[in-house]
């Protein structure tokens, strides 16, 4: 019989090792999945994990993409991780991401065709505020009425998508676009563009913001009393109240902060890589960031690495689609699998696995 036995102290070794193990198991399970689809599993795995970085033919294009994709993932996941640690579940980052993009773009387009250098900073502020405000809806409802933030934040994703469609077709539509849906292109207009800072690296302001967020979150969680309170509230809510933590304040801070970061991610995306507000502007970063947050063990440095890895699967996924005809959906399933393995292996950091009763069975 296999039994689980709680460890007196959580194992640091396993805490660090499980993500690595989860990635390996996902590669194996993913390989099986690709084999079922009739693809060569080893080639598929190589195309996803190796070729984007090291294949001479693709690396020049793919490497910069790594930062482009990882930036928003890390930015959003850092925000989410704070709430997840406190037991506050914002799963509507996708909606906050949309609202950040819409608000930021609206500010940029309002000043069109001005090219003032003040416009982009204004857009950044508007983007953060937009995401923050959207996240404050579930926060306030939770504080005031105790409404479940999981369901509310998620419902608001669908509302945000409808709003996005309405903006792309209506208020923000490019008047010179010949009736096509979508706004003016922000990334090609000097005043509103989130430009690549170093050519060929993929580094844009959103990536800079993501790095700053990683450092700030690290300091917050390890050196500041607010970070301590966040951890305490998640692990032992009653002890947190005893310690004087105001749970409502934490709800507002965690949801608000994660919303603002998601909004920023949306703004940097719409003014850079995406370029414009369109009906299908959002591509699921808000949901994938949940995987990134867990894969990174809700730890800032872990999230940084996990964001890069997840970005790699995006790029590698596109590449395998192009090279091997592996459908995009397979990559999505692949990412989901990764989360499963991680959650399943998590048990190892808090529990010891004991094999008992074998001897008895053998004897009888």
């Amino acid at each position, binding site marked *: 019989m296999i039994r689980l036995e709680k460890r007196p*102290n959580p194992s640091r070794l396993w805490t660090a090792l499980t993500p690595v193990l989860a990635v390996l198991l996902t590669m194996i399970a993913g390989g099986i999945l690709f084999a079922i689809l009739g693809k060569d599993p080893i080639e598929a795995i190589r195309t996803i994990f190796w070729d984007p970085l090291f294949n001479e033919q693709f690396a020049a294009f793919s490497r910069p993409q790594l930062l482009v994709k990882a930036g928003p993932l890390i930015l959003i996941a850092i925000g989410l991780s704070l709430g997840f640690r406190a037991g506050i579940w914002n799963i509507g980052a996708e909606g906050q991401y949309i609202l950040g993009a819409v608000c930021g773009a609206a500010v940029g387009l309002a000043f069109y065709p001005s090219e003032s250098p003040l416009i982009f900073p204004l857009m950044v502020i508007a983007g953060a505020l937009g995401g923050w405000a959207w996240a404050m809806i579930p926060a306030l409802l939770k504080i005031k009425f105790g409404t479940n933030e999981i369901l509310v934040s998620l419902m608001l994703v669908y509302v945000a998508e409808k709003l996005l469609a309405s903006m792309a077709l209506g208020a923000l539509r490019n008047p010179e676009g010949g009736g096509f849906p979508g706004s003016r292109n922000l990334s090609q207009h000097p005043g509103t563009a989130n430009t690549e800072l170093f050519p060929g690296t993929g580094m844009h302001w959103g990536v800079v913001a993501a790095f700053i967020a990683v450092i700030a979150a690290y300091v917050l969680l390890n050196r500041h009393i607010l970070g301590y309170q966040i951890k305490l509230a998640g*692990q032992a809510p009653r*002890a947190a109240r005893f310690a004087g933590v105001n749970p409502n304040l934490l709800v507002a801070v965690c949801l608000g902060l994660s919303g603002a970061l998601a909004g920023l991610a949306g703004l940097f995306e719409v003014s850079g890589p995406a370029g414009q507000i369109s009906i299908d502007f959002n591509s699921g970063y808000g949901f994938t960031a949940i995987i990134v947050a867990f894969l990174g063990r809700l730890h800032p440095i872990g999230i940084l690495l996990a964001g890069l890895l997840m970005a790699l699967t995006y790029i590698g996924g596109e590449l395998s689609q192009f090279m091997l005809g592996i459908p995009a959906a397979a990559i999505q399933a692949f990412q989901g699998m990764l989360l499963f393995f991680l959650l399943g292996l998590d048990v190892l950091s808090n529990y010891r696995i004991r094999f008992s009763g074998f001897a008895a069975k053998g004897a009888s």
Partner: protein
Amino acid sequence: MTTLLSVDRLTKAYPGVVANDDVSFAIEPGEVHALLGENGAGKSTLVKMIYGLVRPDSGSMTLSGEAFAPSEPRAARASGVAMVFQHFSLFEALSVAENIALGMENPPKMSALSNRIAEVSQAYGLPLDPARLVGTLSAGERQRVEIIRCLLQEPKLLIMDEPTSVLTPQEVEILFATLRKLREEGTAILYISHKLEEIRALCDAATILRLGKVVASCDPREKSARELAEMMVGKVLHQTKSAGQELGDAVLSVHDLSLPPATQFGTRLANVSFEVRAGEVLGIGGVAGNGQDELLSALSGERKSADHVFLHGDAISRLGPTQRRQIGILSGPEERLGHAAAPDMSLIENALLTGSVRENLAQKGFLNWPKTRSFAERIIETFDVRTPSAQSAARSLSGGNLQKFVIGREVLQRPEVLVVNQPTWGVDAAAAAAIRQALLDLAAKGTAVVVISQDLDELMEISDTFAALNGGKLSAKVPAAGLTVDQIGLMLGGAHDMEVADSHADEALHA
């Protein structure tokens, strides 16, 4: 007459500890057999093996002469063994009848079951309404649910784990009457306790466990409480002594405090008033679930109220826990893991939990970890907390060690007022004595101390004054010296809802 249950050389080991080592004893039909031992002596593990919750590593049992090795509680119940747990296995949101049905193998239809419950509860002097939700019952009434659940199965052996810890003295008398009636009917009872006077009053035989081993068997009626205690503990305990000093001015006063319950089945505090003076130890007695948690949270600042709580005459009701700590009101809640301490956090982080303000562990919100660490180490050293290091998780400590840490953390912060709830609950005797001594020392230095406890012996030992908390109401406070058990029982409101029970109990006693 064949022996009812015989336990032969049972051994059960857990990683790092042998809970039961070669334990043997026997129970005759109609015998009330005491299992006596300190917390951690292995009593619980032993009865769990008899009840089929735990499998022994080695050894055997026989029941009425036949081999007995229950693989699960169901099998034990089928063989005629029933158990009343210390922590009741009841469901608050379900009715009395539903709760009882869940503990039976083949329950009759609900209506028939309700009738049976009414019958049995009358016959044994334990009145219960089958339709009531268990969450609305007092601790004593909940125990009745458990007992009736067992009695409906007409067990041959009834196991009772610390049954009196949740009862008032009068309720204890009623329970004993019921148990004696059962004995007359031929039911054997395995009675687990560490309360010596009870065992001397009730039991026919006793097996004494220490550190997992049987150290003695005796007839408890022939031994003095002191002799039993020494067998149980294995050494002579030195008693803590009240300092008996002059009391200072009133420090903390509470006027007419009323507070709605915080949880669905919580207790409402009604017009609670008292004051504590510098150097005074006020003992607040009462059965758990009568407003103890609510009173602590109103004093600690976890729950705020209109102006009812005063420190040196200043209203402080609206201050939160942090601000109250700043002005010197510290507290230690009952639940160690999850309330007083975060289980998965290290002792260093747990030192920060209440120490950040008074020990200056954070500057402008930024944490001073070296200072926090040395605070934690100071607690560990001063209060002899046994732990590999300050970095160990709180959950890895034994109950007694963690409690010493939690109380020590507050004591070291030089409180003006210290409020503690069940400070020695589930703690071994040595740690309990150390904790009581720490509270007395603190009072001797001029702190006003409030000890909320359901252990009346403990309160009598350390209190200067005593008040009883019952149903959310607090009695007037009286000097503790010279109080008798009967007086305390009356202050605790006697038996809960026992009007009907009393007459039956009298009959039973005089039968």
